[in-house]
């Protein structure tokens, strides 16, 4: 029963963040999907007056975390290093509901190692957040370009392991505008939920500080007030965020440089069999330190990221609304083809870079130059990453007055699944913004302009795809 009612939901921004991260990577990529597993019990009455209960289980993906160096998390056969995994994910490990693997120009078939990793990740993360292993998902992504580089194709599929077989899980992209699924509480319309942490999030504290009286002030006025407060908060946080992201970018660049040097050494000395392993260890340790550092920075800056989400969100809302209409036609399709021309500039840039690098050495310069170019993008991506984590909070906090919408037939934590599906709520970053009510937020920062540039083509291409 529950099997047919298991699906993955993702917001448009989270999905585009995932694709964006994919396209940014030079080669293969892996990472984790953060979110929560939600269970709904829908009670309905049949003609015979029998009460029928249906259980629906949704995995809502709220954010993605990419893993810059997968070889530190698992070995060649795919045995995971739990210690390093914990170090890498830290607080977010409770929110991991799945993982993804991106490869260019391949079919969406899990490899030998993917299958092993899925199994281990499932048991590792499910024991941490208490959900069921069968609801842990693997997302396989692939992108390819046509020979004339005119069409960019993005493919994805979500898989879960049912007994021995990997079976596809349908994906639904939540839409801002659609209200039809409101009772299931997984679209943009927020629903009140009980949170494990009682600390108010950023958005709630904003609303409280503004002392809005929604009955007296008009909707527009209150929206503008919220927007202004958000803008102020953002502009305070941007410099810090920028600094930390630059630092992360620099560390990533250094790691890549180390890796390339090492690769060169490996290929040069493969016959001499020089013991490079020691130096590798050192490098790896350095990397681990660097990552921890960056992790600390990012976590400490999570507040700031929350706010930048605002900016991203408002820009994205329109585009996702459009793209959703497209996706909504086939919500049951487990693998959806989305042809997009997003980020063409970037992909072209990276592909030309690669094309210009015929031998070993150029990639090093290539990656450096790309890092330089990407610094601003990095900032943005990080914003998105963190900001997406808050989408759920956003929707929860807004809806305090809307209990009716999702009243009937909704129930959380049904007794049988009470423990297993107990929500792994965020403990960090308890701040958020109301994004829905803020429209056309225009920030005077350069970052915002970059974001807009990035989004516009998406909007256009989505619109054209709809025809």
């Amino acid at each position, binding site marked *: 029963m529950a099997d047919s009612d298991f699906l993955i939901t993702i917001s448009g921004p989270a999905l585009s963040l995932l694709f964006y991260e994919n396209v940014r990577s*030079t*080669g*293969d990529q892996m990472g984790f999907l953060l979110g929560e597993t939600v269970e709904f019990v829908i009670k309905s009455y049949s003609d015979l007056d029998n009460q029928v209960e249906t259980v629906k289980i949704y995995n809502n993906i709220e954010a993605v975390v990419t893993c810059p*160096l*997968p*070889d530190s998390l698992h*070995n*060649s*056969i*795919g*045995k995971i290093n739990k210690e390093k995994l914990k170090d890498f994910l830290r607080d977010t490990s409770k929110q991991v509901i799945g993982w993804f693997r991106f*490869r*260019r*120009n*391949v*079919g969406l*078939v899990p*490899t*030998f*190692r*993917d*299958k*092993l990793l899925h*199994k*281990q990740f499932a048991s590792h993360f499910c024991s941490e957040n208490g959900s069921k292993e069968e609801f842990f998902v693997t997302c396989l992504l692939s992108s*390819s370009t*046509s*020979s004339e580089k005119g069409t960019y194709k993005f493919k994805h599929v979500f898989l879960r*392991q049912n*007994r*021995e*077989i*990997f079976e596809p899980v349908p994906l639904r992209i939540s839409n801002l505008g659609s209200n039809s699924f409101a009772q299931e509480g997984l679209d943009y319309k927020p629903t009140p939920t009980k949170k494990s942490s009682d600390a108010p999030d950023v958005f709630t504290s904003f609303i409280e500080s503004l002392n809005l009286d929604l009955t007296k002030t008009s909707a527009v006025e209150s929206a503008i007030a919220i927007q202004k407060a958000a803008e102020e908060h953002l502009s305070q946080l941007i410099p810090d965020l920028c600094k930390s992201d630059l630092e992360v970018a620099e560390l990533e660049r250094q790691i890549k440089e180390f*890796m390339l040097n*090492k*690769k060169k050494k*490996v*290929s040069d*000395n*493969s*016959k001499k*069999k*020089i013991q*490079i392993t020691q130096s*590798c260890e050192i490098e790896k340790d350095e990397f681990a330190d660097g990552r921890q550092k960056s992790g600390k920075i990012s976590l400490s800056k999570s507040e700031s990221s929350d706010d930048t989400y605002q900016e991203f969100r408002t820009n994205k809302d329109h585009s996702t609304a459009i793209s959703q209409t497209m996706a909504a036609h086939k919500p049951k399709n487990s693998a959806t083809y989305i042809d997009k021309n997003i980020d063409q500039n970037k992909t072209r840039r*990276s*592909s030309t870079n*690669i*094309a210009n*690098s*015929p031998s*070993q050495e150029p990639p090093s310069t290539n990656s450096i130059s790309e890092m330089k170019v990407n610094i601003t993008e990095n900032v943005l991506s990080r914003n998105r990453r963190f900001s997406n984590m808050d989408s759920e909070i956003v929707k929860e906090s807004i809806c305090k007055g809307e209990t009716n919408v999702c009243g009937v037939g909704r129930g959380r934590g049904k007794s049988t699944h009470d423990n297993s599906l107990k929500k792994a709520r965020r403990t960090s970053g308890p701040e958020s913004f109301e994004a829905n009510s803020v429209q056309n937020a225009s920030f005077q920062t350069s970052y915002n302009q970059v974001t807009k540039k990035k989004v516009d083509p998406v909007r256009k291409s989505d619109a054209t795809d709809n025809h």
Partner: protein
Amino acid sequence: MLNQQCAVLTAIDSYIEPLINRVLSTDKFGVCCETIKIDSMSSSCGGVQGDRFKLSIPYARQNLTWNIFFDSQCPEMGPDFIFNDNTFLADMDVDALSTKVPSLANWNPNDENALLNVLKELLSCYKQYQIQLLQKQTRLQLQYNMLISSAEVEDVEVILLPFSSKPTEVRFLISLSVDLSQLQNRTSKSESDIVMLLVTYCGVDWNRITPQLHFSKSLEETLGGTGELRLPQFPSDTSLVQYILKIKKYVAGKVNSAIQSLEKRRDYIAAFLCINHLCILEYDTINCKYVSCILCEDDFYVVMHIQLPLGFPREAPIVEFKSVYHMSSEHVPYSEKIKHYPYDFKWPPHYMIRELYKAMYQQIKIFKLNSIKNCSENHS
């Protein structure tokens, strides 16, 4: 699994190249002693140097297509795989697998043999997996157990086809230990000589049995092609082991007749050299399969090429005239096969040759006329 649209690459990423070369240059892999071949290559990051390969691996006279994924971004990381049989290693415990495929668990990119070892280990896992699948087919399972407990075979590869569904066909590729030491004049390749029996079971209750005998290439030259072999019947009530004994006898007979035939051919060529040592052009010293000499009649010269079939002396030598003056087409001399000449396999070699010669001087005149006629026709 690799995208077909992707451009076919020719360069291999430098750190993978020694590993792949090692795999491709290994000439003995599995029972059938064939080589692994590379089907296609592509790059994970859209570059010009390939790090993804599609290999076809010989197993039970089937080609297993395995996709191998390296990651140029992580040269330390070992390869990843997609097997064409997706039920293989679908649900494995990582620790159990680490003991079965140690070369992958302790991947060392500096070891040239690393990839080859991983493939070997995986292939042996695959074999175990197929044997495990065979457990469900009690009849064949029994045959298999009898087979491996007998000393008659060296190695067996089992495969159940089609993959990942209810099997309709089971193949046993059995490497037979046959004494080939009596075969003389073998080249250095003789070490990899192998006699294989492929037994295919299909049909209801596995009642339809098709045996096929295969020789390795160099052995095929000595024993003749396997196409014309008339294998003994395989009634479905006899066991595989019994049949293998039959086959071994059959192969031994084949080897014996090959040895005898070689001796006869050698005698024939020896006699030929004695009689016509002045006009010999060339002859096969190893397998004694042919001899050619030059003949003259009325100042007309002609090359006589005598081919000795493997069935000699029961099969008559094939005699062919080749003109030294005329071409039938560019670079091909005019030639004619002489079909009728006196021959009896009971004759001693020197008598055979004398009789042949007698007849040939008559034939040369006809050949002379024919070749001139043919040539003038071509020119006119």
